[in-house]
C-alpha cells in the first residue's frame, strides 16, 4: 500500500486542484479563507482577484464554457459566499461546470450566528448540482474529487464546497484519486438502441424535418457530427440562444435562432415542420411561446443527457437519454442521404421574404445598434469570442453577429443575468488568450459590474468592451413602449455616467462613436490596440428588437418590425 502524505487541509485543496489540471482561479479573500490564501501565496496558480465575488463566478463560468473544464472560485464566508449566489444560479441554469470553495466559520461556531456566518450550503441547495459542508479533515480529499467529478460529468453544473476555517489548518492523510464512480450518481451516455432506430425511421419518413439544437451540443462537443448529419440528411438547423455556434451562423442549412426574438424563418419552420429533432435543448418558454400551439404538426425526437428534461415542457414522441454527441454519431451511422429539396425551397422563400430587420430606415447613417453589431462581426475573425450582457444588445448580437464556432458565443441564457457580460469576457480571455474577445454590453448591465475595469487594467486583459449605449434599460423600455403605453417607469439612464471618462479613470483606453462612419473607424482602431479598450457607441435611444413574439403567443404570430407602422 502507498504511504499517504500528511498535509494540511489548505494544501489538500491546492494539491487536488493541481491534480485536476486547474490553472486559473478566480476569487476574493477574507477572514475565513486566510489559511487558504496563505497557502496560495507560493502555489503555481494564476489567481485572478476580481473586485466583487459575483464577478469571480461569472469569470469562472465563462472560463469553463470556453475551455470545457470546470471553473474554480474561492470566496470567504458570509458576505463573500452570499455574493456568489447570482453567479452560481447563472451557471446552474446554463449547465456550466464550476467548483466553488467557500470558507466557513470554525466548526465550533457553526449554528451560532457567528460573525460572517451564512448557511451557504442551505442557501445554495436549489442552485447547485450538489454541495458539501466539510465536517472533518479526513473527508476533504474525497469531497474534492467528488466535486470535480459531479461538476464535469452528466449534465454539468456548479458544485460548492464549504470549508470551516479550522479545517484548512488541520492535518490529515492525503491521497488523491480522480473519481469515476459515486453511489447514486450514474449519468447515462449511450443512447438506447431501440429509440435510436425509431429516430432513424422517423427521420427517413419526414418530409419537413428540422434540427433544433441547444447548449447541450456545445457542452458535449457535438458540433462537427451535427454538421455532418445535417448535411447528409439535408436537414436545416435551428439553434437556441445557448446553442449558437454549434453550427456555423453562415452555414448553408442554418435558419437562425427561434423564439421570442428569433428569426421569422426559424419560427415558421418549427411551426410547419413534421419532425423536430431536439438535440441538447430544453424547450424553454422563450422558444416555444404558447405551449399548446407549439409545433403542432411535428413528431418530436428529444435527445438530452438529463432525463428530467424529456417531456418536461413538450410531449415527446421519441425520447433518447444520453450524450448528444454519441447519439448523433449513432444516428449518423444509420442514416441514409436524404432529400428535402422541396422543404428547403419553402424555407428559402421565407428567408428571402423576411431578412433580419436592421432598424429604422430613417436612422440609416446615424448610429443603429444593429449596424454596430454587424460591423463588429464583419471586422472579426471566426475565432473571436463574443461575450454579451443581457438586454436588447444581447438579442441584436444573437441576431446579427455571425457565430461560426462552438464556445465563441458566451451569454447568460437561462437566468438572463445583467452584469454577467463584462466579468465573463475577462474569464473568456484567460481561457483563450490567443483569441480576440469582445464584450458587447449595455449601459445598464455594464454598471452592474463596472468595478471590474480595475481587474482588466491591473491584468492588462486584452479585450474590447463594446458598450451599446442607448441611455435606457432598453429591453425593459421596449416592453413599456409596447405593452405599457410608453410609460417609461424607471428605465431612463440619461444622466450618464460618461463612460469614456470612467474607463480612463480606471486606466483603460476609451473611444466613442456616434455615427455609423465613426463606428467602423473606432472598431478598427480598437482592434489594433492592445490591452483593455472601451468603445462607447452612442446609439439610437429608442430602437427596438424585432422580430418579436409577444409573451404567451404562438411563435408564428410574430411582429416582424413595427416601428414604421
Amino acid at each position, binding site marked *: 500500500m502507498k504511504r499517504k502524505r500528511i498535509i494540511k487541509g489548505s494544501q489538500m485543496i491546492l494539491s487536488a486542484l493541481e491534480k485536476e489540471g486547474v490553472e486559473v482561479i478566480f476569487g476574493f479573500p477574507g477572514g475565513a479563507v486566510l489559511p487558504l490564501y496563505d497557502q496560495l501565496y507560493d502555489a503555481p496558480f494564476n489567481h485572478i482577484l476580481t473586485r466583487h465575488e459575483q464577478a469571480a463566478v461569472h469569470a469562472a463560468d465563462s472560463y469553463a464554457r470556453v475551455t470545457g473544464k470546470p471553473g474554480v472560485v474561492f470566496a470567504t464566508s458570509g458576505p463573500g459566499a452570499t455574493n456568489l449566489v447570482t453567479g452560481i444560479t447563472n451557471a446552474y441554469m446554463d449547465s456550466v461546470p464550476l467548483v466553488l470553495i467557500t470558507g466557513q466559520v470554525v466548526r465550533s461556531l457553526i449554528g451560532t450566528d457567528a460573525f460572517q456566518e451564512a448557511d451557504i450550503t442551505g442557501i445554495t441547495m436549489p442552485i447547485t448540482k450538489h454541495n458539501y459542508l466539510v465536517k472533518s479533515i479526513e473527508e476533504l480529499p474525497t469531497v474534492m474529487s467528488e466535486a470535480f467529478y459531479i461538476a464535469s460529468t452528466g449534465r454539468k453544473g456548479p458544485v460548492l464546497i464549504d470549508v470551516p476555517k479550522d479545517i484548512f489548518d488541520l492535518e490529515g492523510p492525503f491521497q488523491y484519486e480522480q473519481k469515476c464512480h459515486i453511489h447514486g450518481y450514474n449519468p447515462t451516455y449511450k443512447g438506447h438502441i431501440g429509440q435510436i432506430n425509431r429516430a432513424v425511421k422517423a427521420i427517413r419518413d419526414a418530409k419537413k424535418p428540422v434540427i433544433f439544437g441547444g447548449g447541450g451540443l456545445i457542452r458535449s462537443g457535438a458540433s462537427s457530427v451535427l454538421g455532418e448529419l445535417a448535411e447528409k440528411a439535408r436537414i436545416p438547423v435551428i439553434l437556441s440562444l445557448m446553442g449558437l455556434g454549434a453550427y456555423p451562423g453562415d452555414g448553408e442549412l442554418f435558419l437562425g435562432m427561434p423564439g421570442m426574438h428569433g428569426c421569422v424563418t426559424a419560427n415558421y419552420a418549427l411551426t410547419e415542420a413534421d419532425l423536430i429533432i431536439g438535440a441538447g435543448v430544453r424547450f424553454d418558454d422563450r422558444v416555444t411561446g404558447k405551449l399548446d400551439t407549439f409545433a403542432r404538426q411535428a413528431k418530436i425526437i428529444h435527445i438530452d443527457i438529463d*432525463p428530467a428534461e424529456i*417531456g418536461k415542457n413538450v410531449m415527446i414522441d421519441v425520447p433518447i437519454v444520453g450524450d448528444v454527441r454519441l447519439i448523433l454519431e449513432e444516428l449518423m451511422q444509420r442514416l441514409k442521404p436524404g432529400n428535402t429539396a422541396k422543404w428547403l425551397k419553402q424555407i428559402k422563400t421565407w428567408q428571402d421574404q423576411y431578412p433580419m430587420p436592421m432598424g429604422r430606415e430613417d436612422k440609416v447613417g446615424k448610429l443603429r445598434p444593429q449596424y454596430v453589431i454587424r460591423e463588429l462581426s464583419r471586422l472579426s475573425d471566426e475565432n473571436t469570442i463574443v461575450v454579451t450582457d443581457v438586454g436588447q444588445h444581447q438579442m441584436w448580437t444573437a441576431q446579427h453577429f455571425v457565430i461560426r464556432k462552438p464556445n465563441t458565443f458566451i451569454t447568460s441564457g437561462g437566468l438572463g443575468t445583467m452584469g454577467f457580460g463584462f466579468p465573463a469576457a475577462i474569464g473568456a480571455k484567460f481561457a483563450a488568450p490567443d483569441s480576440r474577445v469582445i464584450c458587447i454590453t449595455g449601459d445598464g448591465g455594464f454598471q452592474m459590474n463596472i468595478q471590474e475595469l480595475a481587474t482588466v487594467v491591473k491584468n492588462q486583459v486584452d479585450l474590447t468592451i463594446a458598450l451599446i449605449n442607448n441611455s435606457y434599460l432598453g429591453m425593459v423600455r421596449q416592453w413599456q413602449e409596447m405593452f405599457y403605453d410608453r410609460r417609461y417607469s424607471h428605465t431612463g439612464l440619461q444622466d450618464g455616467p460618461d463612460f469614456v471618462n470612467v474607463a480612463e479613470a480606471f486606466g483603460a483606453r476609451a473611444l466613442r462613436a456616434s455615427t455609423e462612419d465613426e463606428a467602423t473607424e473606432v472598431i478598427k482602431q480598437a482592434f489594433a490596440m492592445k490591452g483593455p479598450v472601451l468603445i462607447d457607441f452612442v446609439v439610437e435611444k429608442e430602437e427596438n428588437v424585432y422580430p418579436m413574439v409577444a409573451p404567451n403567443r404562438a411563435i408564428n404570430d410574430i411582429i416582424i418590425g413595427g416601428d414604421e407602422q
Partner: protein
Amino acid sequence: MKHVLAIIVENKPGVLTRVSGLFSRRGFNIENIAVGETVTPGISRMTVTVEGNERTIEQVVKQLHKLINVIKVSNLASEPTVMRELMLIKVRAETGSRSDIQQIVETFRGKVVDVSPDSMIIEVTGNDEKLEAIKLLLQHFGIKEIVRTGKVALLRGSKVTRES
C-alpha cells in the same frame, strides 16, 4: 391521484432537506413523509405520499433521481403493497364513555396506551381508510390531539425495493 414513493437515500447530512426542498421548490405537495434506516448501514428509506397526475409524478421521480444522495426511487402506487400508518389519538374519556371507547378500539384492533382521569391515548395502525374510520367514530367523544407517523409500505411477496 395519490402516489406513494419509496426513496432510498444515502444517510448524509441535509439529505432530508434536499428531498423536501425539491418537492416544495418544484411545486409538488408532500402529503406525508416517513423516514427511517434500512437493513443496509448508511442507507435510509423515505416513504413520501404525493398527489399528482402521471406526468407530475414522472417529473418528481426524475428530479429526485438527479439528487446525488438519492440512490433509487420507486413508485409503489402501481404495485401491490402492504401499507401501514400508526396514529396516536388523545380522546376525551369520562367514566361514562370509557367502555364505549374501549369497544371501538377493540373493533379496530387498536390499543389503549395511556389513561388519565378524563382522557385516553389510543394507538391504531392501518391504512388510510381504517385510520379515518376510527377517527370519525371517536370524534363523537371529543378528540383532543392526533399524531400520525406517515405511511410506510413494502411490496407484497418476496420482491424487494433494492437498496443499491
